């Protein structure tokens, strides 16, 4: 089921009756009406159940050849949903097809209005403060400082304004180093491991070619090395396979030559590039989209797609990073080609392994904001937000989320959030409903004035925090195991069904432990508060008994009113939670699905849209 967004002032552009929605894996189908609005494609069933698809989620629309029952239309979405409609008249089908193909000029975020005033919006944007995050890590300190060299995006336009560098790295060194690095992305601090004073830095590949050197760059690495007294050397992790790095040398790029840099240890990690990842995911989706797939074909397909192999490669790299920092106490410099895809994956996942803070809901937001948004992962290009170059599209961020999920499966007690949190983030990376992931870097976001014109996803997620909690999270476990040491034996990696088949209800477990435990916890909380309230009443009564008769009546009334208020609050809370769970999951067998409340108020939404 889909999150039905009650849109304000949307008018229906197109309405087609008598449309059949086919289930992807069984022969079931439902009849209904299809509405096309400026932002959504909405399918309303006879029973007034509805589904809606955001235009931004639509990756491709395909019109199949005419059949006896009508004209089939297959829509593939970026959140791995595949919808198969059969429209009775071919003309209608063509209308839908052509209007879906129209490219939209503006992203949804600019028109999306969750009824907040400017102040609330501003507060939403202030939830995450990266300056405070670096302070939490213990930076600036005696070895690391904030530099204002990029304050006007002059040195590197894909970096944020505020950057942290070693205290000994002077401005000429930084500028010199940035000229020697692809896209000007010179080495900067991304995570500081306070306990050992070891730093994780990131950059892009050096423009070394076959023999070029840059003294400033060499002294930059020297400065990073010197900032850490625990270790005599710095690890330089090139996250590419060696072959790719070698090929880059011919184009005047390449990797650090160990002879030119003193005290570095160079290491290739071997994560494939964005094109390989894109094809791999395509293959995977092709395999799992097959009807009546046999177990052998599934496993063979899973293997040949290589998807889990890539996931494992990323986790392996992150473990290497975490070990180097936490065990050896060495600083690490991570780069790939441009330092915004594989580097972001490895740095953020490494930090997640090292620091329990990033495994909380707030901390995970901070982590994404820091390593992905602010350091310039090209969300607009990679997620194809506005018809861009198809060669730039790649599921890099999806892969990161999956790596995190694999870790949550291995360490069920270590994460404050559950799988639904990851899925929700993934949903909105593509939805363009919030401003966070728009654009390719901070500079573009500032040019678009996103903070004034759009809302922040983090505020929305924070307001719904209840839904994303992992009931098994134990802060004590995090304290005992601050650094996670996952096993990367291949059998610990699983196929993430809830991501790639989130909307194929027939495949999900029909009952969810997570949901049950959360409901029980909620009920328990309510029972507890009722108990407390009752006890309070009891105490009050006893006190009042000593007082005059007149006063007693008043007091009783007062307590009653607070009591009712409390229950109303409680029940409304659970209801909204339940609703959103129904939407996210909706994985019950048909009988019990009926018990679930229908999604929001449909009649309301439809009435709004037709007017």
């Amino acid at each position, binding site marked *: 089921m889909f999150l039905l967004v009650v849109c304000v002032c949307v008018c229906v552009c197109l309405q087609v009756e008598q449309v059949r929605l086919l289930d992807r*894996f069984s022969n079931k189908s439902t009849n209904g009406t299809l509405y096309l609005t400026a932002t959504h494609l909405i399918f309303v069933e006879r029973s007034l159940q509805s589904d809606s698809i955001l235009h931004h989620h639509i990756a491709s629309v395909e019109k199949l050849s005419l059949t006896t029952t009508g004209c089939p239309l297959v829509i593939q979405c970026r959140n791995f949903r595949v919808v198969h409609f059969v429209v009775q008249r071919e003309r209608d089908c063509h209308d839908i097809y052509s209007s879906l193909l129209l490219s939209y000029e503006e992203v949804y975020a600019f028109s999306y209005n969750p009824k907040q005033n400017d102040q609330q919006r501003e507060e939403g944007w202030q939830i995450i403060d990266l300056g405070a995050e670096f302070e939490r890590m213990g930076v600036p300190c005696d070895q690391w400082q904030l530099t204002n060299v990029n304050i006007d995006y002059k040195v590197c336009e894909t970096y944020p304004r505020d950057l942290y560098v070693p205290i000994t790295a002077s401005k000429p060194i930084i500028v010199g180093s940035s000229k020697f690095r692809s896209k000007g992305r010179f080495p900067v601090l991304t995570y500081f491991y306070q306990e050992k004073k070891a730093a994780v830095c990131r950059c892009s590949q050096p423009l070394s070619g076959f023999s070029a050197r840059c003294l400033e760059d060499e002294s930059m690495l020297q400065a990073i090395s010197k900032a850490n007294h625990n270790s005599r050397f710095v690890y330089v992790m090139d996250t590419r396979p060696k072959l790719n790095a070698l090929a880059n040398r011919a184009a005047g790029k390449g990797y650090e030559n160990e002879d030119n840099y003193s005290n570095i240890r160079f290491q290739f990690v071997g994560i494939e590039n964005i094109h390989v990842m894109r094809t791999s995911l395509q293959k995977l989706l092709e395999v*799992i989209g097959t009807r009546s*797939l*046999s*177990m*052998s*074909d*599934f*496993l*063979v397909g*899973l*293997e040949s797609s*290589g998807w*889990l*192999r890539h996931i*494992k490669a990323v986790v*392996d790299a992150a473990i290497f990073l975490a070990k180097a920092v936490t065990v050896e106490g060495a600083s690490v410099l991570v780069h790939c080609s441009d330092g915004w895809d594989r580097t972001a994956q490895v740095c953020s996942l490494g930090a997640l392994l090292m620091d329990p803070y990033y495994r909380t809901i707030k901390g995970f937001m901070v982590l994404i904001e820091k390593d992905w948004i602010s350091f310039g992962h090209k969300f607009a290009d990679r997620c194809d937000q506005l018809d861009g170059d198809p060669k730039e599209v790649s599921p890099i961020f999806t892969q990161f989320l999956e790596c995190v999920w694999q870790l949550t499966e*291995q*360490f*069920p*007690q270590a994460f404050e959030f559950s799988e639904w949190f990851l899925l929700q983030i993934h949903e909105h990376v593509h939805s363009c409903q919030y401003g966070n992931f728009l654009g390719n870097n901070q500079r573009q976001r500032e040019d678009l004035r996103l903070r004034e014109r759009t809302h922040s996803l983090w505020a929305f997620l924070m307001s719904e925090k209840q839904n994303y909690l992992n*009931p*098994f999270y*134990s802060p004590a476990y995090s304290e005992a195991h601050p650094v996670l040491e996952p*096993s*990367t*034996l*291949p*059998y*610990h*990696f*699983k*196929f993430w*069904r809830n991501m*790639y*088949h989130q909307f194929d209800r*027939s*495949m*999900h*477990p*029909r*009952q*969810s*432990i997570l949901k*049950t*435990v959360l409901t*029980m*916890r909620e*009920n*328990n909380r309510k*029972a*507890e508060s009722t*108990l407390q309230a009752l006890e309070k009443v009891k105490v009050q009564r006893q006190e009042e008994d000593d007082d005059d008769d007149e006063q007693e009546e008043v007091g009783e009334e007062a307590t009653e009113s607070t009591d009712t208020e409390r229950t109303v609050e409680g029940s409304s809370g659970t209801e909204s939670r339940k609703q959103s769970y129904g939407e996210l999951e909706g994985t019950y*067998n048909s*009988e*019990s699905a009926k018990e679930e409340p229908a999604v929001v108020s449909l009649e309301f939404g439809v009435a709004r849209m037709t007017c």
Partner: protein
Amino acid sequence: MWRMLCSDSRYNRRAEAPCASPATTCSSRTGRRAALGRFCCSSGTSMPLRKVWKTFWATPASSLMQATVKKVWKTFWATPASSLMQATVKKEYLNLQGRLLSSVKICTCSSLTSQAWSSVSTLHALSRPSDANLPDQWGLSSPEKHYSQMKELHDRWRLSTVNREYLVCPSYPPAVIVPKNIDDDMLEKVAKFRQGGRFPVLCYYHKKNGTVIMRSSQPLTGANRKRCREDEQLLQAAIEGSDKGYIIDTRSSQQALQASMTGGGFESKSCYSSWKRLHRQMERGKALQESLIKLVEACGDEYHNMDRWLSKLENSKWLSHVQTALSTAGLLAECVERDGHSVLVYGSEGKDSTLLISTLAQLIMDPYCRTLEGFLALLEREWVQAGHPFQQRCAHSAYSHARLQQESPVFLLLLDCVWQLWRQFPLALGFSEALLLRLATEAYASNYGTFLCNSDQERCVLGLKENTHCLFQALLRPRERDCYSNPLYEPTELAIWPSVHPQSLQLWRGFFLRRTPQARHLEEVQEEIRNMVIKWGKLALS
């Protein structure tokens, strides 16, 4: 790693038992067979063990190295059935540190395969330990009890004691439920027409629509299409009042044809006009055994290569077998619950895949079977009493490279399928994963008599009911019950239809990767759920 295993005191405790008297002889029939089995084992253990054996003899006892012991360890790492062996080797090793025990003893311990273990534990079980605080009653269910509980059955079905001397069918219990108007003489004739005398008997009555599941073995029609009037009458009587019944044959039609060349066969359409035959091929016997061996081997593989693992997993075909078993059981349940037709199930002998799918179908449809007692009673009825040859099938686990023709992990496959059901309906089953794990262990080596022998008859001859304890009774003691019940259990009357998409099925990590720290994390979470529920339950009470 070592410490973790060492702390697993449950295994250490159990491991003590067989060390007591491995050389004791037993005069009974089974005992002799078991002793013979052990003889075979010691000469034909799997390679790594033999190596160790040699090493032991070659090196002086005093220079026994840690490495050698570790090697045994590694080989058996992540292999379920050998957990007992692991425990023993470990235990002996610990003793070594202080004072060297006889090295021969270590050899014996490490080279004992499950066959020997089970024979030894037979002796142990026969000795009936006095500390076990168990009720005297043996077993939870019997055909008599089953029949008397089902009042609805009594119009059209009766309890026949034609097999009370085990003469008609050696693998059936003394009492079976058959159609009312089929008398014992007819049954004897039908028994001659079915392989091993396993004539069609009722195993499940669906209360909602009065349809039944029956099971049997293949009819002996042979190449010249022999007929048996009584068999036809029996089947007709079973679906009296309904126009159609289904026969689910767990072989492919090709295999069924082949079987008819060698004396077996299938019901022809002309003679059984109101029955529709469906063929669903399910692997059994050797193929299943090979599959388990490959899977266990893959799980023990320490190579860090994803492709290699996935191809090995695929190559083992174990998950394919799980998928087939669940979908065939789904088909069976669909015939009964949705179409409202009675079904007869058989494979060739009717002792393996037949029991597998009839059990799964009952779990899918019958809410009572999903409770802890109900499930154990179901296992007792459908596996122990119905004559699944546990001793032949569960002797070696994954370590009998084509040595024993009879070895086959059908029961393990059942537990895996039940686990898949539990994963998809975590609230609908009254028991926990821990119970399935315990059963998987007990089936291979046990202090209890329940899984010993191959049939009711053998158990009767050995007097197991007098001389051993019943595992199922033991599992229902209050302390065990706490541990094996599902804290989140919410009874539901509805059928639980599992999804059999390959994306919905998973490797049973809790079993096949039991010894990894990740499995321990999952166990901790299970424990956490239990504690939470208990805490909240207390609060609700207060």
